[in-house]
């Protein structure tokens, strides 16, 4: 734990961004440790998705530093950010699957881009990750033939195909029915606990954060189990909550700290 806190996987230092005259993020500073989970909450338009795109280097801030595994990506040109991005996976709000490619080709895409031309190895990995998200049966389908929840699952499969160490989820449960939304949350926890993947999860559903903070995946079990307390093999997930408001960080802390807040804005995010 101490070692991880010395080297955060993602660190924002006084990051600000405006689009033309409109401020989107102001003086954002936070850090996320290895295998940790950061739940990002906030009402619509507070810059949550923008923050993820900044972390991934898809957008450049006007000021501040963004470090990924200790490397400040802000001054780097696009070509030098690309190798850093390969260590990160992102699940976009609507899945952002390539609609002209089948599920198989979508999931194989990052592997081919990484330079793997061994079709047998690609197929093995594609089936493995599709099995992980329980979507192997849809391997030949086109994205237009999938439901919203299925698309998110395929999107998760595509994002993890090249084994990234960091996952960014942009509202992965938005617009889904509660059962499907829970399935996606379970997948996020499974990935975090089975593969030790660090995650930033943007969500509008406080219950997603609650599940991720208080439950964990145990190999071989279908459902998540209540997380044990710290000190018990350290198995409780290191989950932190961050709430954005008016382009800035309004709250940063653990689940219990958020639960104890009396602020009316913060209480909106309590289950």
């Amino acid at each position, binding site marked *: 734990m101490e070692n991880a806190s010395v080297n955060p996987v993602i660190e924002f230092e006084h990051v600000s961004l405006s689009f033309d005259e409109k401020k989107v993020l102001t003086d954002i500073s936070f850090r996320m440790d290895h295998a940790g989970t950061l739940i990002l909450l906030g009402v619509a338009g507070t810059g949550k998705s923008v923050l993820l*795109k900044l972390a*991934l280097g*898809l957008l450049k801030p006007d000021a501040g530093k963004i470090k990924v595994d200790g490397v400040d990506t802000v001054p780097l040109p*696009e*070509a030098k950010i*690309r*190798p850093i*991005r*390969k260590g*990160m*996976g*992102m699940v*976009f*709000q*609507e899945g*952002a*699957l*390539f*609609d002209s490619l089948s599920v198989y080709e979508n999931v194989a*895409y*990052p592997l081919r*881009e*990484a330079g793997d031309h061994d079709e047998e190895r690609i197929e093995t990995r594609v089936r493995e990750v599709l099995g992980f998200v329980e979507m192997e049966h849809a391997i030949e389908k086109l994205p237009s033939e999938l439901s919203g929840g299925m698309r998110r699952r395929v999107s998760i499969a*595509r*994002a993890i195909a*090249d084994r990234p160490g960091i996952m960014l989820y942009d509202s992965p449960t938005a617009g889904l029915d509660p059962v499907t939304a829970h399935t996606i949350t379970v997948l996020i926890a499974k990935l975090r606990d089975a593969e030790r993947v660090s995650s930033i999860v943007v969500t509008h559903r406080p219950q997603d954060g609650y599940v991720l903070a208080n439950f964990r995946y145990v190999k071989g079990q279908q459902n998540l189990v209540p997380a044990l307390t710290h000190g018990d093999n350290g198995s409780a997930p290191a989950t932190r909550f961050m709430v954005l408001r008016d382009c800035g960080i309004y709250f940063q802390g653990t689940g219990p700290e958020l639960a104890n807040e009396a602020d009316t804005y913060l209480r909106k995010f309590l289950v």
Partner: protein
Amino acid sequence: MSNGGLDGFLKREVLAVQEFTALVLTSLRLAFSPPRYFTDTLLQMDVIGFGSLPIVLLTGFFTGGVLALQTYRTLGTFGEVGLLGQAVSLSVVRELGPVLTALMVAGRNSSGIASEIGSMLVSEQIDAMRALGTDPMRKLVAPRIYATLITLPLLTVLSDFFGLLGGFFVSYSTAHLSSAQYWTSAYQALDLQDVFQGLVKPVFFSLVVAGIGCYFGLRTSGGTEGVGRSTTQAVVAASVLILVLDFFITKFLIGIKFT
């Protein structure tokens, strides 16, 4: 600093020209370094080149035909109907073939490219592509530009031939010229400069057709409505640019002497 008025308009237009030029030059430069997407280029050659073949051939044939019909009346008043082949071949090879082919390909493909890339942009597929380590310039823009660069000159040659064929059809059936009369006159009228002019133009036009489509596609904003807007803007801008560029290329090439 106001963004409105003539001042703001001119600045935006100059910036657009600068961005468009940078996009085209960057994609041409990318041909010299890996990774290169050959499969995507071949696929685009099929979509842009082979897909445009029917409309290009039809346009060429009927343009040549109508040109022969109109010229026949004029030449008839001077008793020079035998020059029909020459009149058709010079007009088609120098001017109408390259310009009309480019306009037809622009109408079909600049819009198609803009809507395809625009849709990918608004549905975050281009962001996803970047997130997965792909450079959209290499994967989306460059293959479309290379494919148009290769196929438009070829389409122009075929369109020219079908234009001459259309002219022959009218000359034979209406003006009662023999095949030998028409084709000899058409062939002998052309010199190296005419052929050169007819083949240089599509090279520049191809950069406009594909470049404009990609440019407007990549600056799409405002959801599906924005995609529709980009599509329309791409066709209008590409068509106008082709005609403007044609004037300047012709003006420049006319000054070149081939001895």
